[in-house]
């Protein structure tokens, strides 16, 4: 799968070499790896964690974990997939520790409107809002909805990976994503409203 771009480009062969050097304890190779991926991971964290300082901390901590866990990385799989998995687990843990999740643990399709959305309205929404506004709207979403959208549309994770990270059934990922989209549409449609209430989430896990 086409993973999110990172700064500059590193060919697979280069990456494999850098990774083996890092494993051998080469500090320069580690520096190269860090510089290559840190910006993308920082932005990833920035989209998931509400406070900028948290994202900065998380970025550093994620790379410390990566360095520790590099031995467990299976080189037959894409590195970015593994990296984002580590990052998303870390961020999800951070969010989970911070507060008891507000959204429903298991979803049901009934919670979604059966009607098709108005395509014209959707189009207006897309035209009227800048990327920055979308990200601001994202910050208002419940943690899991935000996670789902970022994992899917920023980190390009597969449904399996998302299900694994968020500890939900794979079949539920689609519902989760769609509900998150609804919540984002609502958030952008009424900028000051709190979305969690409307989402019908209330049962604490």
């Amino acid at each position: 799968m086409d993973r999110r771009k990172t700064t500059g480009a590193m060919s697979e062969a280069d990456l494999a070499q850098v990774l083996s050097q890092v494993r051998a304890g080469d500090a320069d190779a580690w520096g190269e790896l860090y510089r290559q991926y840190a910006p993308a991971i920082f932005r990833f964290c920035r989209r998931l964690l509400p406070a900028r300082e948290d994202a900065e901390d998380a970025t550093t901590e994620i790379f410390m974990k990566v360095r520790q866990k590099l031995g467990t990385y299976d080189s037959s799989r894409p590195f970015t997939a593994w990296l984002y998995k580590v990052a998303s687990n870390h961020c999800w843990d951070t969010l989970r520790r911070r507060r008891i999740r507000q959204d429903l643990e298991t979803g049901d399709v009934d919670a979604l409107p059966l009607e098709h959305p108005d395509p014209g309205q959707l189009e207006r929404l897309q035209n009227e809002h800048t990327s920055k506004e979308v990200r601001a709207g994202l910050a208002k979403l419940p943690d899991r909805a935000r996670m789902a959208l970022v994992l899917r549309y920023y980190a390009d994770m597969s449904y399996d990976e998302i299900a694994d990270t968020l500890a939900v059934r794979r079949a539920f990922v689609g519902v989760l994503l769609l509900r998150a989209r609804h919540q984002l549409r609502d958030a952008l449609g009424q900028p000051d409203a709190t979305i969690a209430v409307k989402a019908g989430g209330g049962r604490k896990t």
Partner: protein
Amino acid sequence: MSTSDQSLANHFDEVTGLLYLEGQLDEDRAKAVAAHVASCAPCRQLLHALESESVWLRESLTTDDEPIPAHLVSVPERNSTHWGWIAAFGLCAGGLYTLWNGIVEPWLASISQAGLSQQGILTWFIFQGAFWKGWDAMRTLTDFMAVATLGSLAIWLFRKQWKRFTPIAFVMGALACALALPPAAAAADIERGDPSYTLPGGQEVKNDLVVAADRTRIDGDVDGDLIVFSYSVTVNGHVKGDVLGLANKLTINGMVDGNVRVAADSIAINGSVGKNITAWQDQFDLDEKAKIGGSLSLLAGNADLDGQIGGDLTVLARVVDLNGLLAGSALIRSQRLVVGPQAEIQGKAKFSGWHPPEIAQGAKLSSPIDVSIKGPGPDYASGRYYWHQTLSWGASFIFGLVLLLVAPHFFFDVVQSSKRIGPALGLGTLFLLATPIAAVIVCATIVGAAVGVIAVLLWLIGVYSAQIFTASWLGEKLLGGAAGASHAIGRMALGLAIIRALTMLPYAGPIVGFCVTIWGLGAIVLTVHRRMQVQAPAAV
């Protein structure tokens, strides 16, 4: 939404549409959806809308308009902390050596002089520390560095711990300190006033007596120490040990065989004290009939000394009125010194103050008083002043350097927090003023004394560190943000130099110093608060 001639039951729902677009449907279902879409305009529109929403989401999420913060650009090298650690341990070892030479040894010497047991060291530290004559020496660079290094190591240790164990660590630490308090406390009678406490005349307490009451009156005898936390304390009886405590008003009409070490608003000694008095108060009165066997060390507003003092006199006060017998030497720092006609100083006397001492005709002095007159405020003409400022700058810079190496994330976090000027100033003011008050209140309970002392120590470290963060913020403002610790060091050095120069200004200097301190302190509090908030729910 437009109506279609096809029945609604044949339309697929939005989830199915999304799953279809994302290639998540099985083959049969996908084919069915594709077939339906070919002939159903509303569903086609839905798919189109969902797909453009996907594109829009991807674009919005991946657009980069926020640069990665400067300190994240540089690689967090674990190796680079090695020399930081070596430096920290080196400083720490040097610091310990200095502490031992400068503080512990003189302490032990003073303790035997003052007749305190080893067990009383902590108590002695609490009540004597502020009057230790070596505080001046403490201001030298080495000593400061030692304390600073130990302090920053403590911060680092705390930071590592408070992720999960903060509450436990605090409670255990307080308990450990409480247990480390003199075991004598175990052999003490502990009395709580209801609301006042009186030990009637003729009664004798065989052990130490610990009293917490509104008003405390000792008419009887206490064989051990009297440890008292009370609004007013009157000793008419006989205390064979020491008198230690906190009070608003302390009056000793009777006899104390040991030392008196107290903090109070006003103290009146009308009886006799066998050993030394160390006190911190606004008004100190030594009646002409009163006798002190040992030395008198005071930090006072006004000191009225009409009685006999067997040892030395050390006073830091506004006004000192000496009109009695002083067998030892005198070291007096005050705005004014009045030596009355009944005064007799048998040792050497040294006075530094704003005005020349007023010495009455009848006063007997063994030698002329060594007087140095210095007006309020710094002496701008002396080179020593600038040398001292440079040393202080160096000390704060090295302290900042150690902080940066030991706890870089915390450091950058606090600098970040100092950008929130309003909350930082507000919180800083609150903590600057409230912490000592809270610590004194906490100290009013025996177990709390340890917690109070720890709180004050942490507060002192925080107050001293504050300038580092404000300076880093200032340096960053002037030179712009840049990547890596080396740039941060340069910015901090510049900021510290500017702040140091500003605080040297007459009149405005102290105000600048105060603002810098509350700002930095507020930033520290903000950062600590945020970090604790992040970690706290983990304990739930």
